[in-house]
């Protein structure tokens, strides 16, 4: 219970810190819309030459773009800011203060900082997803919908664990500010179904930098493309990564000896 209260408090602090700059809202809204416009215009150009891309119809790609924007927003809203904060605080030693708190340090890391304006992207992505779903119409069964939600959650766990493992490296390497940008630059590729890519890139985007589980796989569930194997692999990977990242985090904590503070 106290955890939820903490989330509320931290969220409020972050929100109050940002809403003071009201013009930022409009600038961020503008940038989010421009980003979405870029994706949609690119889609429009490509679908002016073809009816389907690697077997994917326009509305299915639209759903994929929706998920891409939604998940990208969630990552930059909650996962990434917390990890950046962790890396910073390990470097300058303020991580000591997190350790002295009675709550679990991993939980505290996750909720201490939010990318408030990403709420705009989350809303836009969600809206686009709903539009795509309406246009796909009655083709979506109850089971597909359930699988879709399950795969979104699985993808979120995988991405979170992946980020945690990268950020935990800070305990040894200290200067790893840029390590998280590797995900950002690979995430671009998630705007298209990974089945288009040649095998080496597809495996890279699935198992090395797990972009596919956050974008393609959920939409595959939605459009009845998901086979049982992928489903099981996704579940298995989520469980394994969650456990491994937690264990790795604990080893990292032991290694932390405070720096300057």
């Amino acid at each position, binding site marked *: 219970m106290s955890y939820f209260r903490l989330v509320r408090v931290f969220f409020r602090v972050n929100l109050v810190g940002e809403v003071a700059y009201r013009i930022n809202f409009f600038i961020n809204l503008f940038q989010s819309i*421009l980003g979405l416009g870029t994706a949609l215009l690119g889609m429009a150009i*490509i679908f002016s*030459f073809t009816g389907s891309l690697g077997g994917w119809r326009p509305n299915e790609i639209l759903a994929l773009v929706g998920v891409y924007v939604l998940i990208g927003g969630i990552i930059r809203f909650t996962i990434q800011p917390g990890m950046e904060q962790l890396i910073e605080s390990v470097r300058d030693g303020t991580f000591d203060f997190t350790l002295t708190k009675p709550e679990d340090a991993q939980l505290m890391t996750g909720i201490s900082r939010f990318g408030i304006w990403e709420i705009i992207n989350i809303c836009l992505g969600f809206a686009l997803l709903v539009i795509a779903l309406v246009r796909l119409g009655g083709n979506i069964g109850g089971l597909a919908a359930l699988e879709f939600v399950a795969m979104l959650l699985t993808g979120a766990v995988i991405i979170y664990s992946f980020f945690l493992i990268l950020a935990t490296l800070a305990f040894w390497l200290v200067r790893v500010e*840029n390590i998280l940008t590797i995900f950002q630059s690979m995430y*671009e*590729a998630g705007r298209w179904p990974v089945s*288009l890519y040649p095998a080496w*890139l597809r495996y890279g985007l699935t198992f090395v930098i797990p972009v596919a589980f956050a974008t393609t796989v959920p939409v595959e569930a939605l459009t009845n493309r998901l086979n049982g194997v992928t489903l099981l692999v996704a579940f298995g990977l989520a469980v394994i990564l969650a456990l491994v990242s937690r264990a790795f985090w604990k080893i990292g904590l032991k290694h932390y000896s405070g720096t300057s503070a």
Partner: protein
Amino acid sequence: MKSLFQLYIQQFKTTFATMFQYRASLVIWMIGQVLEPLVYLIVWSTVSNGNGGSIGTYTTATFAAYFIILMLVNQFTYTWVMFDYEYRIREGYLSFALLKPVHPIHSDIADNIMSKTITLPILTVIAIGLAFAFHASLNVTPWLAVLFIPGLLLAFALRFLLEWTLAQCAFWTTRVSAINQIYFFLLLFLSGQIAPLSLLPRAVQIAAKILPFYWTIGFPTELLLGKITVTGALIGLGVQIVWVAIAVFLVRVVWRLGVKAYAAVGQ
């Protein structure tokens, strides 16, 4: 003149040392530079294969060649001054540059030359690998290959000067990220990054050729690919020269106004 030469040499050394220090960042950054054209290469190849092997004058193999050359041209002409400038002005570091007796543009030019000297060979190797992986086909016409060199250099000059001008926006506002995003949006669609210009609607093609964007990336790419006649190439080089002249003028005017508006913040 001698001091300017020394400045370039010193900046070369500094850039080299910095890039060597941040090797990991360099690798991460290069992944991004390769991935974007690669994704469009794959998407367009898929469309082309689904369409019987070609769209317009582009076959699947020409698409591959187009995007691989584009990747190299983009890397050659790419700059990051917009991101640097915002930081320099916000944190007040520009004050140090203003104390020096030479125009600060020189250290940026030297910085760009050195970092490209390091990154281009690596990217060329990647490009060759990709060309084999995607069976790219390229029939180089000797005359166009010769004209490609001034085309590429002018494209770099033009893009560098334009982006340097754009970077000066930071003198008036600290919220340059929105302005940069508009620029990259226009660049994506009008320079040929998202698709060869000839596949876009007629109105977009005309706009792209009137505006400078096409001349910074698309033109040299199509030149090496042999999609332009020799006459067309010569006219194109003329257009590039005109645009470079306009850009030089813009840099001078905006810089003069900007320095007046500059109030060192931070330091």
